[in-house]
């Protein structure tokens, strides 16, 4: 059995080990943090900084010659390349102000353009609104008129219907009362002489005319058009027949008279004949003028009826044409407006891009990278060297800010404060290194002091029988003359396995296994 002294000793050993390990971890973390801080305060190489600042001064000095300036610039580039300084930074930082100004100017221009466009757009919209309203009112008026026209058309249709019926009635009346007697009377009165020779033709014409009217009456589908057609036809018939008959008769009489006149010298008979000729001519004129009165009346009535809707139609047509013109004009206006809107959108996009550019440049200006700051400070030439050394500790922005504005006293103060701080950091780093080293030495010494073998040191964590078994295994391995490192490796593996089995596997299994109190009776 392992005695209590060794057990206590082992416990103390493990405790001190744990303490040492903890303190080592703490000191190591402190050391790394201090190391980082010291690195922050690390001074840049003064030689090259000095060189680069001198070169920049030469480059910016107006009194120096062009060749010297070029040389200085070359040196700046060379040094920047050597120390991995981005000279793009200089360009951006020095150009950024100019760029911002340019961009701002451009932005102002575009903004004024946009304002102008917005004003024009507003005006156009107003104009369009007004035109739309007028167009609307016109269309409404036209619609009203169309409606009126429709009503009028309906009324006209009704009137025409009644007129048609009246005409039909009148026609019947005329046929019954006026036509036959009228024709008979007219023909008898005016064409007695003419019809003497052409009685057969008259009879034929009359028969035909009467037949035609009778047919149309019999059909009873006599509308205005057919009535007018028939009437026109009838008048033509009447005209042609009467006129042709009269004319042929008169012409034959004239030719006879002329023949007589030509053969014989003018006598009393000739005078008579001349007079007859005159009377015949008058008759022809009369016949030409002659037309049935009721036909003329009917045609005039129909013309009047048709004239009214035609006038309305023409009016409407005119209005519709006006409306179409207005629509075309509106379309033109709309096209113009879309063009303007596109221009507006384009200008807005331009503004957005310009704003983004300005922001980008401003950001560049606000948060420069270390290289930018450094080179910027160098370019500014008034910047003292130590401000560059402070850039890491007081932040880039501050360094950038103070690099240009600080006066000499403040600069000195700041430099003193930060050099003091950097010294403090270095001292702390040194202390932490010393502590870390002492702790490590202590740990090593403690390891050397302990004579108990590794397996036995685990007596605090593992049961006694496990340690005994591990000890037996170690002895066996030694007897087998295995390599020292292999023995250690095998033992470490076994320790890990037993730790796992004892603390985890057995603890879990014990939850469902019976206690020792429930041992089987058979043993007793």
């Amino acid at each position, binding site marked *: *059995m*392992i*005695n209590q002294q*060794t057990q206590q000793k082992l416990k103390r050993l493990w405790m001190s080990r744990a303490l040492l390990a903890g303190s080592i971890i703490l000191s190591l973390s402190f050391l790394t943090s201090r190391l980082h801080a010291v690195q922050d305060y690390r001074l840049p190489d003064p030689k090259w900084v000095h060189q680069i600042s001198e070169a920049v001064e030469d480059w910016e000095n107006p009194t120096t010659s062009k060749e010297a300036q070029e040389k200085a610039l070359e040196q700046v580039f060379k040094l920047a390349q050597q120390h991995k300084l981005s000279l793009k930074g200089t360009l951006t930082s020095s150009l950024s102000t100019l760029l911002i100004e340019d961009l701002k100017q451009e932005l102002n221009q575009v903004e004024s353009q946009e304002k102008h466009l917005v004003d024009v757009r507003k005006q156009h919209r107003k104009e369009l609104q007004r035109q739309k309203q007028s167009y609307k009112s016109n269309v409404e008026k036209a619609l009203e008129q169309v409606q009126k026209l429709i009503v009028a058309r309906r009324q006209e249709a009704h009137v025409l219907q009644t007129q048609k019926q009246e005409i039909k009635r009148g026609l019947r009346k005329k046929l019954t009362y006026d036509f036959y007697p009228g024709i008979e009377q007219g023909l008898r009165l005016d064409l007695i002489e003419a019809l003497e020779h052409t009685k057969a033709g008259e009879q034929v014409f009359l028969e035909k005319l009467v037949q035609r009217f009778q047919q149309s009456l019999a059909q009873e589908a006599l509308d205005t058009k057919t009535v007018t057609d028939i009437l026109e036809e009838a008048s033509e018939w009447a005209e042609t027949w009467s006129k042709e008959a009269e004319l042929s008769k008169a012409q034959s009489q004239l030719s006879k008279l002329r023949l007589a006149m030509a053969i014989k010298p003018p006598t009393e008979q000739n005078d008579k004949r001349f007079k007859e000729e005159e009377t015949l001519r008058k008759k022809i004129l009369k016949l030409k003028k002659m037309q049935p009165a009721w036909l003329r009346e009917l045609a005039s009535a129909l013309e009047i009826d048709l004239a009214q809707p035609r006038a309305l139609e023409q009016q409407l047509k005119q209005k519709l044409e006006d409306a179409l013109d207005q629509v075309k004009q509106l379309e033109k206006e709309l096209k113009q407006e879309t063009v303007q809107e596109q221009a507006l959108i384009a200008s807005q996009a331009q503004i957005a891009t310009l704003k983004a550019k300005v922001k980008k440049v401003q950001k560049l200006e606000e948060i420069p990278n270390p290289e930018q700051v450094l080179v910027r400070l160098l370019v500014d030439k008034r910047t003292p060297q130590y401000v560059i050394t402070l850039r890491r500790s007081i932040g880039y922005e501050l360094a950038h800010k103070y690099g240009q504005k600080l006066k000499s006293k403040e600069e000195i103060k700041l430099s003193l404060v930060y050099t003091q701080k950097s010294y403090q950091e270095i001292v702390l780093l040194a202390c932490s290194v010393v502590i870390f080293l002492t702790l490590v030495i202590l740990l090593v010494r403690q390891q050397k002091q302990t004579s*108990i*073998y590794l*397996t*036995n040191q685990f*007596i605090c964590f593992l049961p*006694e*029988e*496990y*340690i*005994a*078994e*591990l*000890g*037996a*295994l*170690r*002895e*066996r391995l030694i007897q087998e003359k295995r390599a020292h490192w292999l023995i250690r490796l095998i033992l470490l593996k*076994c320790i890990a*396995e*037993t730790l*796992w*089995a*004892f603390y985890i*596997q*057995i603890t879990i*299994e*014990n939850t469902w*296994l*019976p*206690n*020792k109190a*429930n*041992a*089987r*009776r*058979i*043993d007793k």
Partner: protein
Amino acid sequence: MPKKNDEAKKNDELVRISSLDEDILTVLLGRKLYGLEILDDLNPGRPIPISFGSLYPALNRLEKKGLISWVWGDEQEGSGGARRKYYKVTGLGASVLSEVQQYRALLAQRAATQGQIAWGGS
């Protein structure tokens, strides 16, 4: 009377053992061995050798089930005075093992006879 009945019930309960438990019981039958010796007896010819990590839980299991018991050995100098535990099979352990072995023998016999019938042997 009720106490007696409970105990009888407990004795009648089936004790389940794994193949590793059976192997350990077989090794310990009629002998007293400590852990490393058990491993020495078990591992030769075993397809997957057993380590301390699986031996100790198995021994704990058998002990909790009452199938094995142990006694302390002498202090060992090499291990700083730590003692070994010598394990032995209990009566229950022996009976459980014999039951299992009988079953295995029966199983083997049954397989042999069925095999003979299948292959047309006499």
